[in-house]
Each structure stands twice: as C-alpha cells, then as structure tokens.
C-alpha cells in the first residue's frame, strides 16, 4: 500500500530492509539461541546513520521525526525484534535528554547516541514498581555539586551494554508524584553496577539487567530538566517511543505473515498446496488485514505525534495495544499455518511467537494502555458539552 512516503523515508525503509535481509536474517536464530547481544548489527546500524533518525541535525542526527524512526524499526523488526528492541531502546534512553535536557546535556550526549557510538538505555522499572510507576524506591539526594543515587532498577533493556542511562529517582518523597527526577548516569560512574543478565522467553538477543546504585555520585548537572518533573518526562518519553514499539509489532507481524504465505503456497497436502484450502486462506487473510491496519495506525499516528498533539498519550497507547495484540495473534497463527514445522526451531516462526509476547508487556502493559485510553476518553468527552443521544 502507498503511504505517500517521501524519497528520504523510502530510502530509510530500503536501507533498513537491506540490513535486515543481508545481515540480520542469517544470524537471528543463532543470537537467540546463544542469548548473544547483537553488537555487530548495532555497529552496522550505526554506520548506516540509523541511530539518529529522530535526533535534530544540530546534535548529530538526521533531523527526522517519529515516523522516520518507526520506518527503520519496522524493517529491522521484520527480521528480529530482539535486535530491533536493542536498537529502539537506545531511542527510549535518549528521549528524556532530547525533550528536557539542557543544551549542555544535549550536546554532551546526543551526538554519540545519534552516531551509535554509544548505546543508551532507560531506567524506570523496579521490582515493586512496574505498572504502578509512582511507587519507585530509588532515591537521589543532593550533596553539594552532586546527587547521590541509591536503589535498584529491574529488567532494564540494554542494561550493561549501554553507556548512557536516563534514570528516574525520587528527589523529594514528600511531594508525591511531583517528587521524582531524571538523571543521566554513565556506565563507569562510581557506585553504579549491573545485576546478572536475565534469561527470557523471547527477544533473547537483547540484554536485560538490573541497574544497581550504591551511593552512586553523579554531578548535579546530570539532572534532566529540573527536580520534580520526572514523571512528566517519563510520560512524554512514552508518548514519543510507543509508536516505535508499535513498529516492532508491525514488523514482526509482517515477518510472520511473509513466512506463513510462502510456506502455505509450497506445502502440499491432499494433493494441493495448503493455501488452496479456505481454512488456511482465512487465517492468512485475517493476518494480512490486522498487519496492514496496524501499519496504517502507526504511520498516521507517527506523523500526528510529530505535531505534539493534545491527544498524544491516547494515540500512543492505541499504537502500543493494537500492534502488540496483532503481533501476538499473527505470530501464533503463523505457527499454526506451519503446523508441526512451525513448532520446530528449524523455522523462524516459533521464535517470532516467543518474541511477540513481550510487546503486550513492556513499556507499559497493554492493560495499562487501555487504562490510559479509557481515562483519556473520559476527559475528552467530559469537555464536550453536546449530547450524542
């Protein structure tokens, strides 16, 4: 389908697709099996200028927006969302700096993130604070020219591999939701260490670790924005990043659909290719409908989000829910179309199905996304005085 992309956007698609096909597809199964971080692929994506698509040119990026980033993520995800997650998570770590950082912080960190020289990560989740973000325990206490961080972040994507971390900590507990702040913490800062690498169901090429802060001293100028706006930064970051998570779902769905259709055309049972049976045709049709609808939602939303609209949180949540649920359904059906072969590791769809599950969980569970959409609807309709009856 023609989404009226610009020449430059088509080039981003083409280049990312070439990398996915030539460099990622041949190694994805092995990286998954060995739970190996895809450093070589990160290097290739960096050299291709794809890490800085959404970062302004003055900070070393390509000066595009959310759609440009989504296009690259989708193509990479078509081959492997473990790798695409590692790639996209660097953007998640960069957004707090990009949106709220001082000029000094932006100039210090964004060029390296844009060039892919250093990976970035986002540290929010804790063992007791997942969906309930407000109950985080990590603290940052001002001490002269420094802040001292204490606490543990859990399940941090790119943890241990990234060098630049945007970390949320409580600076003033008495202020409740207005008492949290974001800091840039660098790998190597005194008192900053990592927990063991987690073993996961899917996206096993990506690295997930604890971030451990024990009297970790960071210079006061690493505060992002000002004290007390931590939760606002987190929400605004998610508004920007969730369409990207959506693109992970679109790419994964497309990757599974491609394999399912190709297989169904070749696999012969009862003397005919199985694609000639309606039971299979209808499955493939539903997979194609959902994948295309998910893509249309993401492309339109990504363009919309670049205008900083008032309904950003609702649209971002819709992107995440619809694409995550779609990817779970489409990959599960892809395994069904391939039958016993689909269940075996010799074919890529079992990995795709294992990988898909995370899309309904991370960066805010799909249940939390539906809460956001519901609350936004309530607010939106509360402002409308007209009756629809």
């Amino acid at each position, binding site marked *: 389908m023609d989404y009226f992309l610009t020449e430059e956007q088509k*080039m981003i698609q083409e*280049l990312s697709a070439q990398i996915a096909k030539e460099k990622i597809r041949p190694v994805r199964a092995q990286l998954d099996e060995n739970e190996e971080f895809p450093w070589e692929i990160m290097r290739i994506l960096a050299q291709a200028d794809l890490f800085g698509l959404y970062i302004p040119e003055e900070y070393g990026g390509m000066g595009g927006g959310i759609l440009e980033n989504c296009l690259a993520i989708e193509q990479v995800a078509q081959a492997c969302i473990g790798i695409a997650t590692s790639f996209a998570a660097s953007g998640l770590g960069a957004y707090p700096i990009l949106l709220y950082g001082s000029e000094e912080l932006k100039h210090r960190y964004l060029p390296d993130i844009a060039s892919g020289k250093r990976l970035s990560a986002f540290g929010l989740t804790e063992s007791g604070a997942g969906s309930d973000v407000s109950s985080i325990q990590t603290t940052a206490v001002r001490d002269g020219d420094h802040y001292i961080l204490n606490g543990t972040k859990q399940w941090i994507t790119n943890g241990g591999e990234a060098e630049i971390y945007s970390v949320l900590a409580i600076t003033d507990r008495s202020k409740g939701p207005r008492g949290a702040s974001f800091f840039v913490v660098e790998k190597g800062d005194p008192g900053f260490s990592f927990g063991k690498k987690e073993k996961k169901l899917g996206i096993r090429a990506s690295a997930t670790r604890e971030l451990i802060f024990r009297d970790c001293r960071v210079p006061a100028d690493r505060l992002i924005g000002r004290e007390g706006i931590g939760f606002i930064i987190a929400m605004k970051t998610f508004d920007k990043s969730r369409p990207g998570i959506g693109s992970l779902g679109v790419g994964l769905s497309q990757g599974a659909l491609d394999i399912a259709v190709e297989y169904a055309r070749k696999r012969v049972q009862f003397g005919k290719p199985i694609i000639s049976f309606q039971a299979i045709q209808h499955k493939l049709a539903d997979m194609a409908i959902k994948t295309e609808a998910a893509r249309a939602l993401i492309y339109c939303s990504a363009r919309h989000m670049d205008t900083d609209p008032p309904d950003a949180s609702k649209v971002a949540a819709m992107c995440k829910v619809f694409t995550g649920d779609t990817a779970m359904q489409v990959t599960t059906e892809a395994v069904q179309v391939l039958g016993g072969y689909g269940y075996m590791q010799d074919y890529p769809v079992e990995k795709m199905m294992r990988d898909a599950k995370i899309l309904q969980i991370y960066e805010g569970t799909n249940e939390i996304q539906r809460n956001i959409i519901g609350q936004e609807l309530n607010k939106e309709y509360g402002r409308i005085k007209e009756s629809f009856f």
Partner: protein
Amino acid sequence: MHIVVCIKQVPDAKNVRIDPDTHTLVRQGVESIVNPFDLFAVEAALKIKDASNARITVITMGPPQAEEALRDVLSRGVDDAVLLSDRAFAGSDTWATSTVLAAAIRKLGNVDLIFCGKQAIDGDTAQVGPETATMLDIPYATFVKKIESLDERHLKVTRQTDEGVEVWKVPMPALITVIKEMGEPRMPSLRHKMRAKKAEISVWGAADLGLDHEAVGLSGSYTQVVRVFSPSRRGNRVMIQGSVEEQVEELYKLLKEAKVPGL
C-alpha cells in the same frame, strides 16, 4: 591521495540461466548487481579513506543502466563516479575494456592507486586488472587479501597464491586486484545514499577519452565469443567416504580396478 576503483555490473549469479537454444544468458528478469569481488575492492579503498583523507573515484564501462551500479557504490561512501558508456564500446573483450579503463584513468590524472576485484563473476577471466596496469605501464599485484601498510610512495600488500602468501612492497602508482579476504563490504549509509541519489555522474564516451572506434568494442577486441554451450557431463562421480585411511584404501582399489598404469 586519489584512488580509483574499477567495477563491473553483472547479472546476479544466483538467478542466471542459459537459454538452451541460443546458448546465451537469459537476462530478462535477472537483477543486476555490482560484481561481488569489486565490492571487496571498494571496501579496500574505503578502508584507506577511513584512515586518511583519500578521495575515491569509481569507474565502470557499461550501458547507461550501469549507472545504478555506480550509485550503489557511491551510497557506500565513495566520493565520485564516472560512467564510461558509448555504443562503440559494445562487444569489447578484456583487451578493449582495459583500453577504455586505462584511457579513463589517464584522463582522471594524478591517480595513486587503482583497485579492481580479482575477476568478474560473469566472465571469470581475471584479465582486466593486469591488462589495465600494463597499458598504464604501472606495477600491479593480484589476489591481494590485505594492505599491510601505506606511505607516500609505496604500499605493502599480502597476496594469496596457491602455494601460500606473499608479501610485496609495491611502488605507487599501482594497480591492486582484491580477493574476499580483504573484508566484508560495508553497508550503505543513509547520508551517502541521499548524496548518491542526487549525485551527477559524468558519462565519458570514446571521443571524450580520445579513443578511435577501431581501438574499442568488437573491432578493438582480439577475442570474440563464437559460441556458448553447456559442457556435457563426462564420466561418473564417486564420493568416497570414511576415515582418511579408509578413503585412501578405497581410492587405491578403484584406481587399480581402472587399471591405472603403475598400480
């Protein structure tokens, strides 16, 4: 430093078929690619550029659509491209092709290094590199797998031979043909791709190169393809398996049965 890389656009070998009646390549629907060995040559040049302020020009002789191959290479970080295209070049064998490439390199002027792939995957002759160097009267080294060092006037290269490796010190200007051990060709980058899309590519014909029509194309070629055919299969192949000792014993038995003299 100015480096020239010579490339060739070839049909993607993975999809090539021979028409059983005409014995010619079926080009319809077959994607054209940059000769894979030439991409290793491009990579060799880019490696030098990474470490210095070298300028790289890529040239190719071919029909107008060979421009695509030049843009592919530009998108990987090469600076300039020149297409050598003229109806008069059609039917050139390796000699006539080398005549055109050598003339283009002379016209570019002040070239320090020339890289070629070791051979093209369609013709497989491995002649164009050495012929071009000979016509330019400069030294050449073939089958190079590594550039050991480079100074103002010399480069040191390791070449792979059937017997082993040789390390040569070569005075510049020189021509080097490259094998795949030079390193995986890099992917395009978005910045280079955007530049490549818009890049003006000069097209030089026989007149621009000061070449007589007699010197190029079919009339400038010492060889002509008279007929292409698929060789018929000869004899039977036997795979011998087992440990080395078992294989030797089996081979000896087979040779003896075949009454090979001396056994």
